[in-house]
């Protein structure tokens, strides 16, 4: 069944060391590639954010100052949802309240954003 003859213990030791080194070498190289890719995308993301905030600042004076929205007595204010369905937000708030052991009406949620 076997195609090769037995190897000596010394040879096995060398193969083992070499194999472990090859795994490290391969994954270290891959780490370098992934790190470089990550840095490129992080820089691109920062640039885009900077451009977006500059554009927002440029348009801000032109926009009329929005009147503060009236809230109902006892209300904690408006909750901003970013890419989150109201139903999901309701579940999240209920879970947080449950985990903290506090009634939901004693907590204030300002915004809920989906982390992608």
């Amino acid at each position: 069944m076997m195609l090769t003859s037995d190897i000596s213990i010394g040879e096995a030791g060398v193969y083992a060391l070499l194999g472990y080194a090859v795994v490290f070498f391969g994954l270290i190289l891959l780490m370098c590639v992934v790190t470089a890719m990550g840095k490129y995308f992080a820089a691109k993301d920062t640039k885009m954010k900077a451009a977006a905030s500059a554009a927002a600042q440029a348009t801000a004076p032109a926009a009329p100052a929005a009147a503060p929205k009236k809230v109902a007595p006892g209300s904690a204010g408006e909750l901003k949802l970013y890419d989150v369905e109201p139903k999901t937000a309701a579940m999240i708030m209920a879970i947080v309240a449950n985990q903290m052991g506090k009634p939901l009406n004693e907590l204030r949620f300002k915004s809920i954003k989906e982390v992608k």
Partner: protein
Amino acid sequence: MNVGAILLKLWSNSGFAAIITGFLSNNGWQNLVMLAISCVLLYLAIVKKFEPLLLVGIAFGCLLTNLPNAGLYHQDLWTAFMDPSSPMYHSFGQIMREGGLLDIFYIGVKTSLYPCLIFMGVGAMTDFGPLLSNPKSLLLGAAAQLGVFVAFFGAVCMGFTGQEAASIGIIGGADGPTAIFLTTRLAPHLLGAIAVAAYSYMALIPLIQPPIMNLLTTPETRKIKMVQTRNVSKTEKIIFPIIVTMFVALLLPDTAPLIGCLMLGNLFKETGCTDRLSDTVQNALMNIVTILLSTAVGSTMVGSTFLTAQTLKIVVLGVVAFGISTAGGLLGGNVMCMATKGKVNPLIGSAGVSAVPMAARVANKEGQKANPSNFLLMHAMGPNVAGVIGSAIAAGFLLSVFG
């Protein structure tokens, strides 16, 4: 019409007669022992929930193949298939003509089709985001391959050939499809024992790893909370499988089938325009291949090749490989903890053995035992998926040396 002759013929054709008449001379006792082993494996899978999705199929394949006269699997056909001097050498046509049902199932193992398709499913179910947000996780995935090479060395010391030792060592990678892929190529006669050992130990990770984790980490380091890593963009997640495939397959071409399928599955998941394919690979295809793979692997557990001292040695070497791989990952985690001045919890190193996501869950659980507000799961997923790539590279190295 002679009723007596018919009954006599029915009796002589039955498996009971084969076991009784050939109890000592024709491996009848081995069949009985293997049937008992298959029942024990079924018990472990169904009652104790040891990787039931795979172990039920493996155990039932073992049961079927050891039923005398059933003719479902023919060890002699596969021996001739592997013999260069035989007219049946590498003749799948002969297997199709003369083989039983399990022989035909086994063609998918022999051609490495099933392990690769399983890897495609694993890829479609894996989120490489944690790895991309913390690329240093790859080092932990590499460190946790220590057991593969220590067990390989140990197997050679115990008298196994290089090819057999390589197949045994890969159990330490804690990656079933990779173990099957490599063993089929290098030591197919050990496939049953290696597959059962690999999947059994993967199921036992929650029992095997915690004592080693407690031994190699301090209570203080186990309490370390890790900070949230950066968000990874969709584009990065799409580019990653393409880059990894090119990079790893160019480095070690023997890993191309495994890595290629793993990354194709992941690409289906991440593109956003192949949701149907991703869904099929993750569910329908994965389930179908799991049935075929597990039954075919179980069918190789024939008494004459399984009931040997070698199987016991494989069982021992397998647990050693698992333990040392865990220790290697933890040592890597400790080094990273020191290098970052306590920003990395060393427990995540244990997840570098690739059993996804079980190993990451164990790291998270142990972290929460030390500090209930500690959530290591996402941090541990990085080394966990790095371990999948690491074990594929280790398999590629062993295949290129001994294949």
